[in-house]
């Protein structure tokens, strides 16, 4: 029976595979129901916001919605010469409504981003359009300001036609698409974002490096000390976790400020003159010091968990085979800690690259990072789409780092604990 069909049947004659599926069905449903709340939570708090951020970052419907008739009329216009009468008429009708609703200001601002000097032209049109007569709007509009005869301004309007744009992403790297649709850099004195990106990566890199240099001996000590001392040390490592981030950052402010404890100590030891106290806060130094301290446990713990599994007899074996302690360390011990180093560095780097509170409080002007810029656009300029775009760029950057790490070291090599 089973040999004929090539399928194994149960005694009831049902194929074994189906029978197994039915038997497992209940367990599968149970398993799914168990993870369902978490899945739902993740979708609501993680996937949906990211999706929303993305749509917000490329959303450009504001101008499109303000000038619906204009864009409809512009569909047939090739953009080479001045648009035909229909476009002028449609634009007049759209603009009239905007002026009436007192929302013309937004359009003026938006179009001014696109073409400098647009604002004044539009303002003048807003005043004059009340006296317009019906028909031949092209002539009437062109009479209001001679710039309406310049095809550049109409092209600027047309460029805003698509409801989606990647201009915010370009802005995030100090670029924009100019009148000809080419992507160019902004003038040198306005390139602020690139500096921030570089600084963010630089700070994250050095914080990771400092964390690594400090955490390695600590983790080694933790893994090798007898239990009663290592527990105490472990509590010291974990203590910062139990203290609020703000409190820790604030304590660094007390320590590092110019009249602070560290400076007092330097003066007391005669290391620096009283009138020449070094600035250790509101600059990069402050950011480095505070962030390294705050992120240190994230490096210590993965390292510790890996080092704990390395048998002390391996180092002894290395030495008994004739390796000096240094050689035994670099050839035997160090390679075995790489999974922990990878995990710790990845963790600290990713946390550092998006760090916000500490650089905001102790960073000053030269120590702020890209996340502070994102927060600035969220809270002060209210340019949420730009903030979203930068947030997504940061997220993409993190994913890229993860991908590179996976290629270089292999994520399955990571050991977090």
């Amino acid at each position, binding site marked *: 029976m089973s040999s004929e069909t090539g399928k194994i049947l149960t005694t009831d004659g049902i194929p074994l595979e189906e029978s197994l599926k039915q038997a497992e069905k209940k367990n599968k449903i149970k398993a799914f129901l168990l993870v369902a709340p978490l899945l739902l939570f993740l979708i609501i708090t993680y996937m949906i916001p990211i999706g929303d951020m993305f749509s917000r970052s490329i959303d450009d419907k504001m101008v499109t919605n303000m000038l619906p008739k204009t864009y409809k009329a512009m569909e047939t216009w090739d953009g080479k010469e001045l648009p035909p009468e229909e476009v002028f008429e449609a634009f007049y009708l759209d603009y009239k409504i905007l002026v009436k609703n007192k929302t013309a200001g937004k359009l003026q601002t938006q179009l001014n981003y696109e073409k400098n000097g647009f604002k004044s032209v539009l303002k003048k049109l807003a005043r004059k359009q009340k006296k317009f007569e019906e028909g031949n709007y092209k002539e009437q509009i062109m009479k209001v300001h001679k710039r309406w005869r310049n095809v550049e301004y109409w092209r600027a309007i047309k460029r805003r036609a698509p409801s989606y744009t990647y201009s915010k992403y370009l802005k995030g790297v100090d670029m924009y698409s100019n009148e000809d649709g080419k992507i160019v850099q902004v003038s040198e004195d306005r390139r602020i974002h690139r500096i921030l990106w570089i600084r963010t990566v630089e700070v994250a890199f050095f914080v990771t490096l400092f964390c690594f240099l400090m955490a390695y001996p600590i983790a080694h000590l933790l893994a090798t000390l007898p239990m009663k001392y290592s527990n105490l040390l472990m509590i010291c490592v974990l203590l910062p976790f139990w203290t609020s981030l703000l409190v820790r950052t604030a304590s660094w402010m007390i320590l590092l400020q110019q009249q602070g404890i560290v400076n007092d100590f330097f003066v007391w030891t005669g290391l620096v003159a009283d009138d020449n106290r070094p600035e250790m806060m509101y600059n990069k130094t402050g950011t480095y010091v505070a962030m390294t301290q705050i992120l240190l446990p994230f490096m210590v713990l993965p390292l510790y968990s890996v080092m704990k599994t390395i*048998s002390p*007899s*391996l180092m*002894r*074996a*290395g*030495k*008994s*085979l*004739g*390796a*000096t*302690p240094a*050689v*035994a360390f670099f*050839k*035997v011990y160090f*390679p*075995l800690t790489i999974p922990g180093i990878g995990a710790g560095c990845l963790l600290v780097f990713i946390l550092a690259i998006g760090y916000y509170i500490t650089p905001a409080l102790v960073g000053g002007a030269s120590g702020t990072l890209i996340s502070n810029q994102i927060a600035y656009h969220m809270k002060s300029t209210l340019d949420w789409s730009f903030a979203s775009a930068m947030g997504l760029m940061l997220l993409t950057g993190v994913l890229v780092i993860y991908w590179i790490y996976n290629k270089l070291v292999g994520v399955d090599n990571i050991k977090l604990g």
Partner: protein
Amino acid sequence: MSKKADFVKFDKVDKSYDGKVLVVKDLNLDIEEGEFVTMLGPSGSGKTTCLMMLAGFETPTNGEIFLDNNPISNIPPHKRGIGMVFQNYALFPHMTVFENLAFPLKVRKMSQEDIEKKVDKALSMVSLGGFANRMPGQLSGGQQQRVAVARALVFDPAVVLMDEPLGALDKNLRESMQYEIKHIHESIGVTVVYVTHDQGEALTMSNRIAVFNDGKVQQLSSPDKLYEEPVNSFVAEFIGENNTFGGEVSEISNGTCKVKLEKGEIIANPISVKSVGEKTTVSIRPERALINPKDKMDNNQKGKIEEVIYHGDHTRVRLNLLGNSEFILKVPNSSQNLDIKLGNEINIGWNSHDARALDPK
């Protein structure tokens, strides 16, 4: 080439970890070149500490260790040139078998060609020829053990230390590895210091065995002497099976003594008793006491069978003899129809020479 009798020498070595208790007390031990010496003892007897001092991972609190007449207490482990096989193998998990074996050669800056030759030779010695490119994790416990042995030998050390290397293997594998290590030792003639708590292992492999207890060497002699002629009751108890009687010497004369027990009296061989009235423990090996002996023996006692355990090649019989209800007999499984049944009374005899009157427990 004459072999040095004191190639490895422990000279009045003391070791204490906490300054209160001596783990090793006044240890004197000479090991001949090319010898296989086993340090045998219960856990905590100081044997592993001795090995670690020889390897250089611990320093003697007092005294000195000599290797080929050179004091080595102040030489760090990596300069001693002593190979070591660890309890858990301690193979480097991130290196292949080849790299593991090449490690001691690389740190000695040998040429690639020599390294390959030596590694090949060492691997074929432990019959792991085709395993050079495996990772240690892909090997079975026995194979890992062989790699560890090969790695300890590949750089031709003068002395190889083995710290309970077979502890993690199952019984059959352990036995075959015992023979293998013994044969390797015989073929290359390296000096081996072996630590174990398994007396069978020690008896099988060693030229000489040092029985450790309480930080001291209780007896250092060849396996047969150790078994036949234990010098004190600890060694008698620790090596092999043993029937004991506690009593007092009541008479002592040329070569024999009488020991008075709570019930009855036995004639024994005075090993560590000198005078009448001394307390003593008399030790008799189970196979030295016979049932209904044909030859005349100077000890003859009646005992009641309390338990019979069938062991295949022999039967173990537990008797109540002279007030000792733990007296064990080993009866070979032959066609002889002996009257071994629970509750029966039988005659037991042994020579006074085999009843060793040792120190009291």
